[in-house]
């Protein structure tokens, strides 16, 4: 009997992750000969991230892509992947989540009726500002920086000496324009597609956050699968993650070209150490269990 799986997605249909999710469904349909098909609901139609995570426990959604940060509000182990400057590079992040640590993170989601099958990239978030580039933490001192409504962002930005200003995403453009805020932070595709670069001309690549995104399926569904089907699901997920990472890199390149064309001044932060040093209190406050401390050590040990 054919079963149509409901997939939740936050982004617009032509986003790298969205295309990769559709691909996941297509591979499943093909490999299981139509016994399982994926039907993806884009744009957060079925509820925002928090509510969607809750719907897993209620068996309302069968698969989804959630950012590690949002999952961290539910499963504490996941908080570790959204710590600032925790990954040295994209390669480091992939090595961590694709390996044994990825399995441990997936296990921690069991309480919330999820199994993480593969990991997408959420890109690297950096600061963009209106008046001057950021080369050292002192440059941020006293600036009003827009952050999403989450503890980790507020703590990180405040540890760097700026004023964290939680503001709805849709308000950022005018807020930059009118000087309500001095800057914000995001990955380059978002910076570009929101046209925030029209009003914030400095993009400083400090890459403070590199948060992986989990492609999860419902544990109820997972446990009902034969071993063979589980392998099919896992392969499909891996393949879709590979596609997403490729598409993301392409998308980043495209965005960077647009930013360069628009005369945005992009500067790579050469010495990240002062930024990392400033994170002491954030780590002290948020890495506060033995489980998190162990994960931190293991992540740092991955080559």
């Amino acid at each position: 009997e054919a079963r149509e799986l409901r997939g939740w997605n936050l982004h617009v249909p032509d986003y790298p992750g969205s295309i990769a999710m559709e691909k996941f469904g297509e591979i499943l349909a093909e490999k299981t000969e139509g016994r399982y098909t994926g039907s993806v609901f884009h744009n957060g139609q079925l509820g925002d991230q928090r509510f969607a995570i809750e719907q897993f426990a209620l068996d309302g959604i069968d698969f989804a892509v959630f950012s590690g940060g949002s999952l961290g509000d539910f499963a504490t182990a996941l908080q570790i992947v959204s710590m600032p400057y925790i990954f040295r590079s994209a390669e480091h992040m992939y090595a961590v989540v694709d390996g044994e640590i990825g399995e441990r993170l997936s296990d921690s989601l069991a309480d919330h009726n999820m199994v993480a099958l593969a990991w997408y990239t959420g890109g690297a978030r950096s600061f963009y500002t209106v008046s001057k580039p950021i080369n050292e933490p002192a440059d941020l001192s006293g600036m009003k920086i827009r952050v999403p409504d989450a503890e980790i962002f507020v703590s990180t930005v405040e540890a760097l000496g700026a004023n964290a200003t939680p503001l709805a995403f849709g308000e950022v453009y005018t807020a930059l324009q009118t000087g309500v805020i001095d800057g914000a932070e995001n990955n380059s595709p978002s910076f570009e597609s929101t046209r925030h670069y029209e009003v914030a001309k400095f993009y400083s690549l400090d890459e403070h956050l590199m948060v992986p995104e989990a492609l999860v399926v419902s544990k109820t569904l997972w446990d009902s699968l034969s071993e063979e089907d589980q392998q099919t699901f896992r392969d499909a997920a891996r393949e879709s993650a590979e596609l997403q990472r490729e598409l993301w890199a392409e998308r980043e390149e495209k965005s960077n070209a647009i930013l360069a064309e628009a005369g945005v001044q992009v500067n790579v932060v050469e010495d990240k150490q002062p930024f990392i040093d400033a994170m002491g209190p954030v780590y002290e406050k948020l890495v506060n269990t033995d489980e998190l401390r162990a994960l931190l050590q293991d992540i740092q040990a991955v080559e």
Partner: protein
Amino acid sequence: MPILRAVSRVLDLAVWIIYAFSALAMASLVIFAGWQVWGRYVLNSSPTWTEQAALLLILYISLPLAAVGIRQKFHLAVEIFPDMLSPRGRYWQEMFVLVGLGFFGWAMADAGIELMTRTVRQAIPLIGWSRAYTYLPLAISGVMTVIFVAERIAWAIADPKRASHPQSAPFSL
């Protein structure tokens, strides 16, 4: 009948409390938003808790009072068909609607409690309270809906002409 009248008087009090709480909460909402602006422009530091607190408060204003609306019949409804009915038809039409509302209220209370149980160990970002408080208003509204529906059904049976229904007049504090 005297018992029913006593019950209704207790419910009058409950309604009064819900209104008083909602009115105070509404005033607080204005103050929160004003404080947010004040913080940003005058103190040069935005309070980070106001948005989440306001989102929580609006649930406590809207949902319990929606149940009161069933008692006071202030919700929008289409009355074309009911208006065409004979008094007897009207009586059964109202019973039907009340039973439907009662079922909805029961399901709401049930879902509210389930959602609270599931989320009790999670925290609301930036204010740190348990997320169960987000779903508590559902449970309150559901329970109050069932109670108000039961009251209206009891009055309809006890007094089909509804000469002495306690809530025919609009409410004022």
